[in-house]
């Protein structure tokens, strides 16, 4: 859940964003990506990968280390466990900071950044964090912010190392969920909503197969992605339909795969962006949702209202409408909730209940409806940053084999779930 804070644009009626077109993204860097950290190679630890991504982003922007005066990151690296009680390494890898997270202070020391005046190591996950970064630059807290988002995956089965799942007691809010087998995170509630969706619109789980296959296809066109690097083969419909069942009807191919990686971005003022190496990608608005359902499980009605409200906030703040969005990269961490964003934002005219029919049309990057041209997290591994980096590349015209053939002037990207998320509207033009 995203905490409600002053910088957020999480209410309708806030008007056009006061910094619309005055903040730009001018750099991006992606580290190497592995399934897990092996616990040995320190350049592949959280700190090592963060360092790599940050340096790439700074170089991509054509900036020097001295140009960076803001550092923003999230502690939500999804490591699930700490490195301890195993022995630490020599400095700077002698604490959790550097191994399972990489704070602003850690990266400042590692990179020798001398001019930082704004530190934030406590930002939310990447969706709202990108909005926070845009707001921070717009508000003048810093001029040029380095923003990074590591995802950490250590050894062991994902989720099984989470202490909560091995506890014989259910404290706090979990007292009303854990005793019935509910797992925290996006899987269960969004599967419940998906089942309600199928019931209401007469759809079924196999309607997600074309989306899954296309995401893998796009992911294989993303050279740094997990599947392009480590498992470079396409899935078939039969693979998807016969996938290992996790929580019936959800199969393994509906779930993005936890990976070990980091991405970094550079935000600066539109004024500063004019003279830099890359074509600026201007931020037209950011918007967040941080609601929750009335009862134990949020319902389809509640999720649909949440994304409809998110869309209204985005249109209001950016001055754009559904027909203006060229590139659309909403979160696909579980394929069961992606249709809510597609229908809520009415991208390419898709209305409530029509997503599965849309998936069955031509959604390839070279086709007329290049949905999730990034390959998403399903196609590249759970890094979440790809939603933004692909949007930037598409607007720059540097997406290579993934470059869409339709117009690419504006892009909308964000994560995580319909009721708790942050989205960013980007454009090639500041106006």
């Amino acid at each position, binding site marked *: 859940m995203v905490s409600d804070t002053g910088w957020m644009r999480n209410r309708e009626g806030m008007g056009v964003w006061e910094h619309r077109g005055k903040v730009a993204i001018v750099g991006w860097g992606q580290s190497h990506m592995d399934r897990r950290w092996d616990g040995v190679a320190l350049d592949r630890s959280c700190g090592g990968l963060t360092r790599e991504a940050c340096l790439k982003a700074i170089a991509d922007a054509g900036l020097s280390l001295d140009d960076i005066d803001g550092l923003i990151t999230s502690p939500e690296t999804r490591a699930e466990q700490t490195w301890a009680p195993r022995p630490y390494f020599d400095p700077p890898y002698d604490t959790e900071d550097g191994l399972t997270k990489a704070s602003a202070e850690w990266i400042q020391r590692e990179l020798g950044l001398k001019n930082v005046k704004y530190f934030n190591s406590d930002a939310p996950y990447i969706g709202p964090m990108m909005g926070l970064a845009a707001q921070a630059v717009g508000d003048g807290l810093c001029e040029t912010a380095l923003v990074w988002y590591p995802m950490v995956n250590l050894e062991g089965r994902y989720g099984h190392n989470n202490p909560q799942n091995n506890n*014989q007691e259910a404290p706090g809010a979990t*007292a009303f969920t854990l005793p019935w*087998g*509910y797992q925290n995170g996006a899987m269960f509630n969004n599967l419940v909503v998906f089942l309600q969706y199928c019931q209401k619109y007469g759809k079924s789980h196999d309607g997600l197969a074309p989306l899954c296959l296309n995401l893998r296809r796009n992911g294989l066109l993303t050279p740094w992605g997990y599947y392009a690097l480590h498992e470079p083969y396409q899935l078939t419909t039969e693979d998807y339909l016969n996938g290992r069942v996790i929580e019936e009807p959800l199969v393994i191919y509906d779930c993005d795969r936890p990976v070990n990686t980091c991405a970094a971005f550079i935000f600066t003022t539109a004024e500063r962006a004019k003279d830099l190496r890359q074509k600026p990608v201007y931020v037209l608005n950011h918007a967040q949702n941080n609601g929750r359902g009335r009862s134990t499980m949020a319902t389809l009605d509640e999720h649909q209202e949440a994304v409809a409200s998110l869309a209204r906030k985005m249109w209001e703040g950016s001055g754009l409408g559904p027909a203006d969005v060229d590139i659309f990269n909403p979160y696909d961490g579980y394929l069961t909730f992606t249709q809510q964003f597609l229908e809520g934002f009415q991208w390419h005219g898709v209305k409530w209940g029509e997503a599965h029919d849309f998936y069955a049309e031509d959604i390839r990057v070279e086709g007329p409806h290049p949905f999730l041209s990034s390959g998403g997290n399903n196609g590249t591994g759970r890094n979440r940053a790809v939603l933004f980096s692909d949007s930037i590349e598409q607007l720059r015209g540097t997406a290579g084999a993934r470059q869409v053939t339709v117009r690419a002037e504006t892009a909308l990207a964000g994560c995580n779930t319909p009721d708790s998320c942050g989205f960013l509207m980007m454009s090639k033009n500041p106006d």
Partner: protein
Amino acid sequence: MSTIPGLQRPAPVPNELTQPFWDACNERRLVLQNCTLCERLHYPPAPRCNLCGSSDSFEWKEVQGKGHIDVYMVIRDSRIRGFRSAQPINFAVITLDEDPGINFLSNLPGTPPGEVPVGAPVELIFEETSNGQLVHEWQVVN
């Protein structure tokens, strides 16, 4: 223990807010917070009414324990230790007849995994957790 073979439910830990709820469960009663200003039920317990925002208008109200099955899935690969030995196991969402905006979780004791009659009526029962604390459960009405 649970009537579902192999299931070891984690035990709820009551706190100041939820103690009356769990005490009532141990008496085999289901009580929900009711805002006397809005006449609106709340579950799980909340510190304030999610409609009017009042924090001092709650009373505990016993409900009848009748509901219907909304949707269900089957847990086949749980991350929760106490459920791994009970897989496959139903996971259903139950709506309360008195207010369908209130929903509960259920493993539907007595219903074989995957053979869940969606839309069928259910009634309240109680099951034991790992430390003896009772929790509310739901059973298909035959």
